[in-house]
């Protein structure tokens, strides 16, 4: 196990190097150079040349790449071209916002998805089953930004139950960066409830797609396990239905679901870009989107690398959790 994790960690190096090369080339090989794009069309040739020199774009590409990577490896992610703010510092502020949103969404999606999937499987062919699967289909077929807007209209504009956007006021002392947790640690119940209300809509919206996917996967996994001999044996020896489900079925059906949870993380990062935009959530999604739209290449380059890093690490964790959940899986 230890050697497996070590090998996987080592394999991260070429993948991330590949990602960095592609991001690097991608930005430099597009038609029209970044300097012109930043300065827009009406810039003079001197201005473009000056900016290229400032950005280091006048050097040969391999030199540029080495310089770029050596800065990255020293932990320097560069600074925004327009904002002059250090990308690393910005990420420290924005990452907890996205993480709080994404984790809440994943918790909602996993708990509800597993529950709905099992119930649908147990009551296969019932109205509940069809209902769940229909909701599941609708869930993966909706543009989530549209769902977000409709929910804002319903809960924020019409009913005025929940705030329409942002994270709310930050707590006085930021410890984890998760507002919900920080308010709780400060024993500020009002603040805690306020941040939960701010979190509710975006977290639910972001949870929709993974929830639907997990429910579908859980349903079919449960159906498969329910047909196994050991389930019949468990029933035959007189175990109560609930015990059979929790102790035998759930545990065995969870494995494929873990894969889905892992795979959904990529979708979650994509979804975060849209969800954060709709709810003006000050996270990495809005940050990278603003940078892309403003053609702030240094920022885009670094954030995309961070996104890819998160993604490959989550995939590694998923693979490791297999072995932990299913001792039969051996990694050489």
């Amino acid at each position, binding site marked *: 196990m230890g050697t497996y994790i070590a090998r996987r960690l080592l394999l991260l190096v*070429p*993948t991330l190097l*590949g*990602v960095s090369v*592609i991001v690097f080339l*991608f*930005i430099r090989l*597009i*038609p029209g150079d970044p300097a012109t*794009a930043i300065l827009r069309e009406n810039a003079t040739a001197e201005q473009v040349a000056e900016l290229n020199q400032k950005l280091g774009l006048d050097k040969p590409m391999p030199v540029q790449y080495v310089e770029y990577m050596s800065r990255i490896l020293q932990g320097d992610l560069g600074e925004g071209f327009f904002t002059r703010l250090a990308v690393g510092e910005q990420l420290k502020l924005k990452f907890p916002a996205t993480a709080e949103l994404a984790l809440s969404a994943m918790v909602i999606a996993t708990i509800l998805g597993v529950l709905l999937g099992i119930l649908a499987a147990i009551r296969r062919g019932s109205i509940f089953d069809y209902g769940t699967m229909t909701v599941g*289909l*609708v869930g*993966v*077929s*909706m*543009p989530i*930004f*549209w*769902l977000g*807007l*409709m929910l*804002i*209209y319903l809960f924020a*504009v019409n009913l005025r139950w929940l705030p329409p956007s942002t994270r709310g006021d930050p707590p006085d002392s930021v410890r984890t960066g998760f507002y919900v947790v920080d308010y709780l640690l400060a024993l500020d119940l009002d603040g805690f409830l306020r941040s939960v209300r701010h979190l509710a809509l975006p977290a639910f919206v972001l949870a929709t797609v993974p929830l639907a996917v997990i429910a579908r996967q859980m349903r079919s996994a449960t159906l498969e396990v329910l047909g196994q001999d050991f389930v019949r044996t468990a029933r035959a020896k007189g175990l109560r239905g609930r015990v059979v489900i929790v102790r035998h079925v759930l545990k065995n059906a969870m494995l494929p679901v873990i894969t889905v949870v892992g795979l959904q993380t*990529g*979708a979650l*990062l*994509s*979804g975060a*870009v*849209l969800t954060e*935009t709709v709810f003006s959530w000050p996270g990495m999604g809005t940050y*990278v*989107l603003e940078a*892309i*739209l403003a*053609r702030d290449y240094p920022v*885009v380059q670094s954030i*995309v690398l961070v*996104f*890819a890093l998160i*993604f*490959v690490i989550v995939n590694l964790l998923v693979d490791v959790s297999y072995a932990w959940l299913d001792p039969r899986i051996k990694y050489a």
Partner: protein
Amino acid sequence: MSATATTLPAPGTVLRRQRSLWRDALGRLVRHNGARIGFVLIGTLVLLAFLADALGVANPNTTFLTETLRPPLAGGHLMGTDDLGRDVFTRIMHGARTSLRVGVVAVGIAVLFGSLIGFTAGFFGRWWDALAMRFMDIVLSFPTILLAIAIVALRGPGIFNTMLAIGIVALPAYARISRASALTLREQEFVTAARSVGAPEGRILWRHIVPNSLSPLIVQSTLGIATAILNAAALGFLGLGAQPPDVEWGAMLVDSVRYLFQGSWWALMFPGIAIMLTVIGFNLIGDGLRDALDVRIRG
């Protein structure tokens, strides 16, 4: 005498014309309830896209400044009008053209290049396989929409770049599927047989491997159109998709967000429902195709 007797079928057997596997699959598909609903949804959509000029206001961009933000059914506007007095229903029909075009072309790009990479990688293997698949892994480690946004933002907004970006982000799925098929099939006996009678490698790939790998590719492309339409709507929503005068559902959504807070929900709700029903339609047909074509499920 005896010769004719032997060609007659034995008593009790029913003469049946041999049917191809594809026809079998088609039969299963049209009996599939989900797929039927999907065909109705997509059929309606295609019809609306074709009849857009006949059914709606002639030009989807015609503005009626005296009739802005009319609610549904008011003044003969089935789905109301938007902030510029444009008929929402007409725009949805014209938007259907855009969405279908983007969905089909983007998936076409992805299937064409993805399967080209996948088949050659799986069939020929060696360094090309290692290189191509490592590259696909890298593409997969970017969040989809982020990569699409980046491509369009760098190349400039518009319908062609939207198709291209969505095609590129979808490419690895097709590459992986066709590579997996090629890997399994190249070890099969009929491939060895073809090789032993002297068929050149290119012919084996084109005549034996590719036709036998079509099922998963067809399923994936149908589901892929659904994803492509969702991604196109997202790009449109961010202002990066099709630009006026092209009508696009995602762009319709972003145009009407501002008026939501004044209570004009229709200009926002109907394009969203159009996107949702279209995506549901393609998803249902895709699921139906999977059931109809997938031999494992069938057996």
